[in-house]
């Protein structure tokens, strides 16, 4: 895009770079903010349906489409209160810390083949690291509020998030191991083709570990049944008890952003990323690597795919939230330490052994390697060959890191 701005539009270099960066940032910001609007509306409708109610019906037509927007306007106009005993600076900054962490993680998330804010070589690791930072805003909020409810909430959140990072990291490592790369674009590209190429169906161990990942992801973004940090029936509203108005809504944007993020990550790591269950584009003879309009359209289709999968993940989280009762703190810790962590460890070892002894799968010939499907697309772990320059290194790509011999 920068080249396009410089060459075609005639902008000077610095302005082109700034414009490109600003465009990417604004797009990601809109994914979070717009997503939060839609998801909050969806959550209310889903909650209502599960509880045999109707939910919002008045604002903006039959289905209450504009309810979130009306809520947003109300929050904008609401008085921004702060308790007397609060630590002013930290109290004001805490929501932005949470939101920034959520926003930063989106930078490395690929939406389609070339649609990624910043293609990082260690994208998976970066996202996990930054997601862990979101808890810092919650801790600050709880501490700076000078309220016991808030402090209890943030202590619970800190304990929970720190614990659940361990099994979450183990789950994330398995697709990384299978793909031989921490680059999310590469991981998704390795799952191209029919849906049995997805890592979810790679072997029984990855199938199990996907569900462990789902559990840990729900816990790490503090959704019910793991929403101890804001347990309404015990702690009023937990860490955001004292917040109102726009700052309060920033916490919610961060929460919905994180939900979308872990769902999108599940899609990239286990569900083929932007590759649909049926490789329509490949069957039609199109390739998303080309720079022309067809390639662009294929990438756009891929983005729809990924957004669809991530939205599905968010909807499942809502379904879980309104179905299961909240766990106690000791049950939360038991789930993490006694179940998720050992299961993840065993499945990790199992996936490793499977990859060593049965790399082709049980049915020979069913798993068509991604390199065959998109010949000349990948060029060693982490690298990408330009589509115009075909390389014959399709077989090199498929060697996982565990099998590389010096």
């Amino acid at each position, binding site marked *: 895009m920068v080249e396009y701005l410089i060459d075609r539009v*005639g*902008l*000077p*270099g*610095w*302005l082109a*770079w700034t414009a490109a960066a600003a465009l990417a940032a604004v797009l990601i910001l809109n994914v979070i903010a717009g997503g939060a609007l839609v998801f909050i509306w969806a959550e209310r409708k889903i909650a209502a349906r599960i509880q045999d109610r109707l939910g919002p019906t008045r604002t903006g037509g039959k289905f209450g489409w504009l309810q979130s927007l009306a809520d947003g306007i109300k929050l904008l106009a609401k008085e921004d209160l702060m308790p007397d*005993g609060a*630590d002013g*600076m*930290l109290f004001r*900054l805490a929501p932005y810390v949470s939101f920034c962490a959520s926003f930063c993680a989106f930078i490395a998330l690929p939406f389609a083949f070339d649609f990624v804010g910043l293609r*990082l*070589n*260690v994208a998976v*690791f*970066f996202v*996990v*690291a*930054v997601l*862990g*930072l979101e*808890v*810092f805003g919650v*801790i*600050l909020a709880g*501490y*700076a509020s*000078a309220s016991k409810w808030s*402090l209890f909430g943030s*202590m619970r959140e*800190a304990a929970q*998030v*720190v614990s659940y990072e361990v099994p979450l990291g183990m789950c994330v490592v398995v697709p990384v191991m299978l793909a031989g*790369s*921490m680059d999310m674009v590469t991981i998704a590209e390795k799952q191209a083709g029919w849906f049995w190429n997805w890592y979810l169906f790679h072997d029984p161990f990855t199938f199990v570990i996907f569900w462990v990942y789902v559990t840990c992801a729900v816990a790490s973004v503090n959704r019910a049944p793991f929403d101890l940090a804001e347990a309404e029936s015990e702690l009023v509203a937990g860490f955001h008890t004292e917040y109102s108005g726009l700052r309060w809504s920033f916490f919610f944007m961060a929460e919905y952003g994180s939900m979308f993020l872990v769902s999108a990550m599940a899609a990239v790591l286990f569900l083929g990323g932007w590759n649909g269950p049926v490789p329509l584009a490949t069957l039609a003879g199109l390739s998303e690597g080309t720079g022309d309009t067809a390639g662009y359209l294929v990438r756009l289709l891929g983005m729809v795919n990924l957004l669809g999968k991530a939205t599905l993940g968010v909807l499942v989280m809502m379904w879980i939230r309104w179905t299961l009762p909240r766990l106690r703190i000791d049950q939360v810790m038991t789930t993490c330490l006694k179940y998720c962590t050992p299961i993840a460890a065993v499945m990790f070892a199992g996936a490793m052994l499977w990859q060593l002894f049965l790399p082709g799968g049980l049915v020979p010939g069913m798993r068509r390697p991604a390199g065959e499907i998109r010949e000349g697309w990948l060029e060693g*772990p*982490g*690298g990408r060959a330009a589509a115009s320059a075909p390389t014959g290194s399709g077989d090199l790509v498929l060697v996982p*890191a565990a099998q*590389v011999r*010096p």
Partner: protein
Amino acid sequence: MIGAAVAVASTCCLGAVVPPLAVLDWHAVFFMLFAAAACGCALAVVLADNVVRMAFYLVLSLGATAGLFFLAGAEFVGAMQLMIYVGGTLVLLVFGVMLTAQAPFVSIKTSAGEKAAAGLLGGALLTLLLVAALSVEPWRRPGSVGPMEPSATPLGMALVGVRVDEPPAGSPAVGRSGYLLPFEIISVHLLVVLVAAAYLARAKRRKTPRPVEMVASVEPPVSVAEHAAIGREAPAGAPARSGSVLVGGGS
């Protein structure tokens, strides 16, 4: 705003006026930004009195350092910095502050003597660092290295024993002198620490009951016995209190 941008763009294209921004090196700008943030927040850590604010400034400082790593193309080190220092250490630090604090907002007042000693020590170290840094003659310009392919793969390979970079000439095992042994030693060390922490943190089970428990077990007061009976079935000989809420759960 758009009009202003177009105007600036057109002037640049015409070449009539070359604003100073046209020669701006974004790399340098971001370097200055991150470096200033890191240094400023580090100073704020020293100057603040409130422990949690110190922790907050430390997070910003370490985060800015991670930004410097990303700027230098060391993505893995940057993510590591975020994960270990910014994430892990500070969550634990804040935990420690919250669990040990006596007053609502802990503030630490440093005495003049401590300030003088710290200033002397810090100044000496800074002088040493500055002298060492300024005595290096051929600093390469930031952009002169050229585009490189940042990758974590060589690091990972080196940790499992395959060294990707050139081993020193005359090395006994060319191509195999990785960092497997240090890696394993650190892993075992961390495992020992984990086991020890779990041992220290677990609930102790005593073989012999403590004196207080013995007294309690010999002759429980009536109230204790009643309390213990809540939720269990009422004893056979007990008078039936069907109207009581307390016994209702067990029946």
